[in-house]
């Protein structure tokens, strides 16, 4: 029984993380039609921000997380201006530019902070949380409520604010949105700001939990792609459902078999679902 609860808790944790990282990627794809491979590097930079501000400069943890969200969001904004805007919504050139950005960011991080070993980030909340016989650290647990909070904030933004609605309109059909007076460039900038900020948030929250090193974005971005593809690119609700699906799938298979099989099954499930419903599990909103 404990074993089951522990697995459920692990699954929820993983799903939250997947959701946080995938939703940002999906948003960027939806609005800009850019497959942003550098999303993983934004995640990595979020983690580095927490390493520097929290682990080295001793800022309060949540302040460091907030700073990571803002800084990485701004970096996304800048990269939209300097790089992705040149892609003019062409998927392939956008993709190639993003791969270029991956290398630029990785090399920059390596040059500034060095390679070597991972950067140790201590737990901000190392206290153990006991939930009816199963235990985890607060540090891990807070990922769940913070994710819910951030996704909720995003939802409110997209649902209530005019600029949020414009973003959704632009994601659905950029030409139709332009006819309504919506600037695609402004939408792209806002989407990139928000999407990167989400990646930064994910990296910041994960910094004390996962290993912080210049290549940490690699494995994460692949998972995020699987989630986004299955959820339907640009479909945020779909990404959240897909994150839950894969979060639990990965957790359960890793617990009972192993993580390599989990990766394999994830890829197979993705291919299967794609064959079944090419537009994503959710279809359209």
């Amino acid at each position: 029984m404990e074993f089951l609860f522990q697995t459920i808790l692990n699954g929820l944790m993983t799903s939250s993380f997947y959701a946080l990282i995938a939703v940002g990627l999906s948003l960027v794809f939806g609005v800009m039609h850019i497959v942003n491979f550098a999303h993983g590097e934004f995640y990595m930079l979020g983690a580095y921000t927490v390493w520097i501000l929290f682990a080295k400069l001793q800022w309060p943890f949540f302040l460091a997380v907030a700073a990571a969200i803002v800084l990485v969001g701004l970096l996304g904004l800048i990269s939209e201006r300097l790089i992705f805007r040149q892609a003019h919504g062409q998927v392939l050139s956008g993709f190639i530019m993003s791969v270029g950005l991956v290398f630029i960011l990785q090399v920059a991080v390596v040059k500034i902070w060095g390679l070597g070993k991972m950067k140790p980030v201590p737990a901000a909340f190392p206290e153990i949380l006991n939930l009816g016989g199963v235990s985890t650290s607060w540090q891990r647990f807070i990922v769940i409520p913070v994710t819910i909070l951030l996704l909720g904030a995003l939802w409110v933004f997209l649902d209530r604010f005019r600029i949020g609605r414009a973003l959704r309109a632009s994601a659905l059909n950029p030409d139709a949105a332009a006819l309504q007076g919506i600037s695609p460039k402004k939408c792209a900038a806002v989407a990139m700001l928000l999407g990167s900020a989400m990646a930064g948030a994910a990296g910041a929250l994960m910094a004390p939990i996962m290993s912080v090193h210049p290549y940490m974005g690699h494995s994460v971005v692949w998972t995020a792609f699987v989630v986004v593809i299955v959820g339907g690119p640009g479909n945020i609700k779909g990404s959240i459902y897909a994150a839950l699906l894969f979060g639990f799938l990965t957790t359960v298979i890793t617990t009972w078999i192993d993580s390599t099989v989990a990766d394999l099954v994830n890829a197979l499930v993705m291919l299967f679902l794609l064959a079944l419903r090419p537009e994503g599990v959710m279809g359209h909103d």
Partner: protein
Amino acid sequence: MTRKVWMGLALLAVFSLFSLGLQEAWAAEETVKIGYCAPLSGPAAAWGLPGLEGTSIWVDKVNAAGGLKVGDKTYKIEIVKYDDEGDGAKALVGVKKLVLEDKVVAILMLGGATTPPTQPFLSKEKIMCFVLIASDIAPDRPYLMDVTDNFPAYHLLHTEYIADAHPKAKKAAIISQDDEIGLAAIAWSEAGFKAAGIDVVYSKAFGVSTTDFAPIITAVLEKKPDIISMGASYPEFQALICEQAYTQGWRGIITSACWDFGAILAKVPKEFMEGAVSGFPDFDDPKLTKDHHDFWAEWKKRYPDHSFSEIVWEYMGALDVWAYGAQKAGSVKSEDVFKALKAADTVPHSFGPGKWFGKETFGNDNLLVPTWPITEIHGGKPAIVAYKNLFDWLKDAKKKQILFDTLKAWNIKTYQ
């Protein structure tokens, strides 16, 4: 006309540069070069970069004393480094450059992924290659030897020590990543525990791309182990494994081939790691010799805020052995040094006199095995608590049988 003049001038310039180079080579005749082809960047840099700290201390010391006396010549030593990024193809380019251009007489390498692509060339050229991974030793790699790190053999000693020191510990779980190194660690550890009468309740490899250890540890803890062995998990995994074991409420004995302490203690309290077992002392350990302490002091002076790991001294340890061989042979020629080393009954290893081992397990007696220290973590620092010897361990025929059976079960090739 002018073009011809230009061409002539250019040719002259190239030629003079060439002859300058030749002259330099002439003047430096008394310098012997040793290659250092290891990951200095990329994900495996932690296994290559710190080694330069030890080797540069070693080289400076030898050169400051005038050089290394070999026969009736005295050589200055020069390390020529090449960053292979842990990649096989890059390593092959590197060793070719080191051997053909720089004319190195021996090469220090990490081993593992870079060994298969480079060995055909290095064996053909008869260049000695010192690696840190004993399982790279093979019959068709005559000049490849491991003269420092006794991985994975020392897992037998760690496990035996745990059984001696903790008679109540009856169940062990072993995890490590599913690459060659990790699997070897799992197999040798499993053999060690079984031979020591400890049940192995979980032994499984995890994917190298694993980032979340929560589910793995949940599965491990289901088996209620008293001991968790992290095998040869990479440093970045160790901290995450410990963190999960700690937060999911487990308390017990941890063991691992080596540690990345800075990273682990960022995640879990010191008390959790108290008594953890491994085999790599810091060189300021009171049980070690003055040489170790001197090295420690010099290293601390040069790199005050670096953290110590076995990588710091292991590449350097290979230089010690090479120098011993060269002096014995009275020559720096690769083949001569090799023959002299293999002919010696015992060769000084950093931890004391070592003997050659490996014929039955790796197909070649190219692993230098000393009496190895066992360490326990006390107050966040490793301390030597015992010494154990592999040859003693192997004297027990029953244990030896368990070892070979287990290796076979894990599909690890042996040469018994």
